[in-house]
């Protein structure tokens, strides 16, 4: 099945709607078989990029390639991609079987083969035997599986997913995330996944393109994006973090540093990297406890630096140290390597 994979390339793609620039000289190379996520807040241009790739929208300038082929001028039906929509977009007047068979019929696949391939795909999404039902008779999760089956049945080299899990509740979402990963492993298709949910992006992706205002802010693996954000925007968007401005000397000394790292405008300190244990920190400073909250596996502390900057800290509930009282001044520290210098 691995023949069905192709690299995707956005080459200097711009798209503007009147004076609004939705995509600004967007460049992205996606490897064949890669699972890439376009992540960003609404209005960041991720959906525009996907629509241009799917053929629902035209770039104002630039070109899109699927494999070696420039597809910018091709209508959606000529691009040979599969797509899963946020609203599922199942054809309500067709049975599950007919929904899944639709891409095959459009490609002129012969009848007996259709039956075989549809049944195999339905089996793969654990919906064997559901072929005669109408979409309206299925649960939300089942519908999304049908949508998935329809998107992959023709084994397109590229699979597009537009906020595909947003309509589902948390538990179903996690279940389907696993399923998508499994399908990706089995099919090896190139996947372009669009979401505003950073947790989903971190779970699923090989690489994440974090977008803002029509541009990629950072393109990296989930781990690198989390551990080494290049900018305040990224650090803030991926996971939770404390941003300590480095252009103000009082904050620099308040977190126990002699001087700001070279060219850094700010420092990102993840809440879980802060610790009260002296042997797990090489930089230490004092802070006042403002609030203590239990979060199941962790305890969340709200602190205030001597410079007046608020900090969040997340502590595993190991029970080694007794909990501080509100108003108490405690010593907190971190490892120098765990702090990320942000240059913009």
């Amino acid at each position: 099945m691995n023949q069905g994979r192709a690299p995707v390339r956005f080459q200097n793609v711009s798209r503007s709607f009147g004076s609004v620039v939705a995509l600004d000289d967007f460049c992205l190379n996606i490897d064949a078989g890669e699972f890439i996520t376009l992540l960003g807040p609404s209005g960041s241009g991720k959906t525009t990029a996907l629509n241009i790739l799917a053929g629902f929208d035209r770039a104002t300038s630039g070109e899109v390639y699927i494999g070696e082929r420039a597809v910018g001028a091709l209508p959606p039906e000529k691009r040979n991609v599969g797509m899963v929509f946020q609203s599922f977009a199942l054809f309500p007047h067709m049975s599950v079987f007919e929904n899944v068979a639709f891409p095959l019929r459009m490609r002129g696949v012969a009848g007996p083969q259709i039956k075989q391939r549809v049944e195999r795909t339905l089996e793969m999404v654990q919906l064997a035997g559901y072929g005669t039902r109408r979409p309206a008779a299925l649960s939300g999760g089942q519908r999304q599986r049908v949508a998935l089956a329809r998107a992959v049945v023709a084994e397109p080299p590229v699979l597009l997913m537009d906020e595909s899990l947003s309509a589902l509740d948390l538990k179903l979402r996690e279940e389907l995330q696993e399923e998508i990963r499994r399908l990706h492993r089995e099919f090896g298709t190139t996947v372009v996944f669009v979401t505003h949910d950073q947790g989903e992006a971190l779970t699923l992706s090989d690489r994440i393109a974090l977008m803002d205002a029509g541009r990629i802010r950072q393109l990296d693996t989930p781990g690198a994006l989390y551990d080494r954000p290049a900018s305040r925007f990224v650090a803030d968007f991926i996971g939770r973090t404390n941003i300590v401005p480095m252009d103000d000397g009082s904050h620099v000394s308040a977190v126990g540093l002699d001087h700001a790292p070279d060219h850094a405008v700010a420092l990102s300190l993840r809440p879980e990297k802060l610790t009260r244990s002296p042997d797990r920190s090489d930089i230490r400073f004092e802070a006042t406890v403002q609030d203590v909250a239990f979060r199941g596996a962790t305890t969340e502390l709200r602190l205030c630096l001597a410079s007046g900057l608020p900090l969040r800290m997340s502590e595993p509930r190991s029970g080694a140290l007794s909990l501080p009282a509100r108003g108490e001044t405690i010593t907190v520290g971190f490892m120098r390597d765990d702090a990320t210098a942000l240059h913009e």
Partner: protein
Amino acid sequence: MTGSLTAMRFGRHFPLIPALALVFAMFAVPVAFVFVEAVFAPEFSLAHFDRFFTRSVYLTVYWNTLFVSATVASICLLIGYPMALFIVGQPERRRPLLLFLVLVPLWMSILVRTYAWMVVLGREGIVNSALLWTGIIDQPMTLMFTTGSVYVAMVQILLPIMVVTCYSAMTEIDPGLVRAARVCGAPPFAAFRRVFLPLSLEGALTGWSVIFILSMGFFIVPALVGGRRDVLLGNMIVNQIAQANWGFAAAMAIVLLVSTVVLLALVRLVAARFLYSPREV
């Protein structure tokens, strides 16, 4: 247990009671009166129905009414569906204006619109004057008081209903479905034919039915713009009422009502077999 369930069910339907009462008072009761009037003359008798079904003049008009109504509804469908499709295809902010333009004629009385056709189709009307002036014809054509003018006037009057019905059915369709079809490999026409069309047919059929029902009751338009053969059952009923022949008028009204209901039930039956309805699960 059962009692409380019944109470719940009653509670759920409670808000419907005023509407049902209104339908009963304004529709069921008058229809019952009409029915009684038709079969008691003054003793129980089917004489009125016998007269209707044995005299060729009434049967001719009856078939003509069915034929004209079905034809008008079909012409409205053929013109109105593409119009609605066009409006749905327009940017959202332009649609209200287009719909407004479609609906404007509904604000004018049927009488005024019908008389206006005389100005358009008459011997010295706009069409004939234009054709005479350009020299395409040298004698005015007979456009008015023909079966053609009846169709033109009825379609013009009823078309907005079809456009609006189709339009509302079309806006119910998730535009993502057509995109999904396209990305599944369907060219525009195939996406329309296999996805959009079947999903909008229910609405189109509703429009057809409404127009058919309304046409069955038309009498002003054929009387004003039709020729001597363009008589609908409605005209006959009006004639009979004018002569105070209540019983016969009532019998014709019953025939009209029953045939409309039976025909629509048949249409629904066929539709349920072949058409997708958003209500089914």
